[in-house]
C-alpha cells in the first residue's frame, strides 16, 4: 500500500472509529461522587487532581498533568526543602477511566512540564499519547479500576520524592463501544499520605515493563508474548503490588516470580498474578500480595490474545490503515486506541528498592 493511500485511509478511518461505536450514555447515577476523596490533613500528605473534563461519545481523552514536589509540599504543610516519604496512596476516579498512571519525570523529549501544567491529548493526537516521551520515567502509582483504591504500604515502607522532582499524572478516558464513560466526564484524585523520615525502614521501588512489538493478526489469531524483567537487586525483594494491562483481544495475563536465570516459564506455583479481565484488571496489593523474589530475580510475564473481527466502525480497512507495516492482515498493533490497538504492560511495586526499573 502506498504511503499516500495509507494516509488517505487513515484520515478517512479515524473519524469512523467512533462514529457508530457508542450508544448515548445514560444519565449519571445519583450517589456519592466516586472521584471525590478528602485530601490528607495539613502536614500529612498532599493531593493531586485533574480538572473535571468532558469525554464525549466516541472520544478517547488522554491528558498529562504536571506537579512539582516542592510546590505540593509547600502548599500542604510539609517542608518544601526536604524529601517526602509516601506510605499510603488513595486513587479515586469517575467511571470510564481506562488507566491512570503517575510517573516521575526524567529525560524530557516531547512532553515537558515547561510547556504547561496540563497537556491534553485526544484520539491519539498530542504529546501525551506518545509513549516514547516517558520511556525512562519511573512508575509511581497506577490504577485501571473505576472507583477508589486505598493502599497502605507495609509499615515503614515508603516511596521517596525529592523536592525538585516533577510528577506527571496521566489520565486516559474512553467513551466508545468497548469501554464507556457513563457521565461523559472524567476526573481523577490521588492522595499521597506521608510518614516522617525517621519512620522509614525501606523504600518502595517500581518495575514497569512493556512489549510494543506485538501484532494480533487474522493470519496468526492466537499469539502470545512472554518477557522478563529483573529487579537488579543483590538481595531478595518482596512484590507487594501488581497489575497488568492489555486491551479487549487480551485473554490471559500472567505474572510469575522468576529467578532471573531460567529461560522457561516458571512453574505455576510461582504465578502471583492472573487476569482475564481486560477492562477491569485486578490490582493486587499487600497484604494479600506479598511475594518474595530471590536475589537477582525478577518478573516473568505473559500476554495471550485472541484475534477478533474489529468493530464495524473500524473494520479491517481501519486496522490496515493504522498498520505501519502495511501487511493488510487485519492486525491489531501496539498503541493506545482501545478499539484498534493492543498493549502488554506490567506494573509492579516492590521493596526494598534497588532501583526503579523499566524494561521495553
Amino acid at each position: 500500500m502506498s504511503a499516500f493511500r495509507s494516509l488517505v485511509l487513515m484520515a478517512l478511518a479515524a473519524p469512523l472509529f467512533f462514529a457508530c461505536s457508542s450508544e448515548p450514555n445514560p444519565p449519571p447515577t445519583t450517589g456519592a461522587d466516586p472521584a471525590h476523596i478528602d485530601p490528607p490533613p495539613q502536614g500529612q500528605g498532599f493531593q493531586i487532581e485533574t480538572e473535571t473534563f468532558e469525554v464525549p461519545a466516541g472520544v478517547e481523552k488522554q491528558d498529562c498533568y504536571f506537579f512539582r514536589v516542592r510546590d505540593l509540599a509547600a502548599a500542604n504543610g510539609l517542608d518544601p526543602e526536604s524529601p517526602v516519604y509516601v506510605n499510603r496512596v488513595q486513587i479515586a476516579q469517575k467511571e470510564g477511566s481506562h488507566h491512570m498512571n503517575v510517573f516521575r519525570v526524567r529525560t524530557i523529549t516531547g512532553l515537558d512540564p515547561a510547556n504547561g501544567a496540563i497537556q491534553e491529548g485526544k484520539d491519539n493526537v498530542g504529546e501525551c499519547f506518545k509513549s516514547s516521551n516517558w520511556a525512562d520515567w519511573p512508575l509511581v502509582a497506577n490504577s485501571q479500576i473505576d472507583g477508589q483504591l486505598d493502599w497502605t504500604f507495609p509499615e515503614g515502607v515508603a516511596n521517596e520524592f525529592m523536592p525538585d522532582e516533577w510528577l506527571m499524572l496521566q489520565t486516559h478516558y474512553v467513551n466508545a463501544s468497548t469501554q464507556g464513560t457513563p457521565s461523559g466526564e472524567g476526573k481523577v484524585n490521588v492522595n499521597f499520605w506521608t510518614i516522617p523520615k525517621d519512620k522509614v525502614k525501606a523504600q518502595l521501588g517500581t518495575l514497569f515493563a512493556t512489549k510494543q512489538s506485538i501484532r494480533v493478526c487474522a493470519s496468526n489469531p492466537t499469539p502470545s508474548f512472554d518477557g522478563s524483567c529483573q529487579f537488579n537487586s543483590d538481595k531478595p525483594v518482596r512484590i507487594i503490588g501488581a497489575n497488568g494491562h492489555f486491551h479487549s483481544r487480551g485473554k490471559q495475563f500472567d505474572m510469575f516470580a522468576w529467578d532471573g536465570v531460567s529461560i522457561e516459564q516458571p512453574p505455576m506455583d510461582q504465578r502471583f498474578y492472573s487476569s482475564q479481565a481486560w477492562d477491569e484488571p485486578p490490582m493486587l496489593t499487600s497484604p494479600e500480595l506479598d511475594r518474595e523474589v530471590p536475589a537477582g530475580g525478577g518478573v516473568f510475564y505473559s500476554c495471550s490474545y485472541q484475534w477478533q473481527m474489529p468493530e464495524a466502525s473500524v473494520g479491517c480497512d481501519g486496522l490496515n490503515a493504522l498498520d505501519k507495516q502495511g501487511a493488510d492482515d487485519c492486525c491489531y498493533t501496539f498503541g493506545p486506541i482501545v478499539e484498534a490497538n493492543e498493549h502488554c504492560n506490567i506494573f509492579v511495586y516492590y521493596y526494598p528498592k534497588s532501583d526503579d526499573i523499566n524494561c521495553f
Partner: protein
Amino acid sequence: MDKPWLALVLALAACSSPSQPPPEPDAGPIGGCKLAYLGDPSAEPSMEVIALGPGGELQPISEGSSISLIFPPQGGRVVFAGVRVTNVDPCAVRVAGALRDLTTKQVRLDTRIINLEPTDDGYGRSAPTDISTFSNIAACPNQWAEDDLFDKPYELTVTLTDRDGKKITKIMTVTPRCDEPGYEAECLCMCAGDYVLGMQCDPDAGPLDPDLDAGADVNSSDASGGSP
C-alpha cells in the same frame, strides 16, 4: 422433523441472541494461517539463527558472531534474534530468544508466537520487514548485566517449537555491538554497565551526570535500596 420438535427448535432459535454462528475457535470468519508445510514432515528440523543487522539487513549468526543492538520503536536497544528453518509447520511457531550474562548467568528473554515467512528454497524465516517475527530481546537500558552490554561476549539461545511439538535449540556465544549508524553514542550510554534509569543519554555525547537531570534522585539513598 415432526411439528413439536420443529416448534421447540424454532422457539429456542427465537430466544437465542444474535443469529450469527458462534465464532471459530481461532480466527473467526476470516483469517487463520494457510501456509504450507516447510520441507519434510518426517525429518528433524534444521535451523539457523539470524538477526537484524545495523542497516536492518538479515545476518546469519553463529558461534563468535557480532550481533547488533538496534534502536526499536519503543526505545532502548534490542537484539532482534530470528530463525531460518525447514522441516516444520510454519504456522504459530514459538520463537524464544535469550541473552545471558556469562558472568552472573542473568538472562533477558522474549518469546512469541509467529508465522514464518516462506522462502523459495523450502525454508521459512523471521520476516526482515516485520520485527515482531523476531525475538525482541530487550537488552538496554542496561539494568541487569554486570558489565557493558557491548563488545563483550554474551550467550545467545534461540529455540523454535512448532505446533506439532517439533523443537530445536541453538546456543552460541555472540558479541553485541552498538553499531547502528547514527545511534552509537546513545547505545554506548544506555548499554553501559553503570547505567541508571533516568540517566540522560545524549545522542551526541557520552552519559551526562545524572544529578543534572531534572529532579533525578538516582544518586540519593533511594537508588541504593538502603534506608534513607
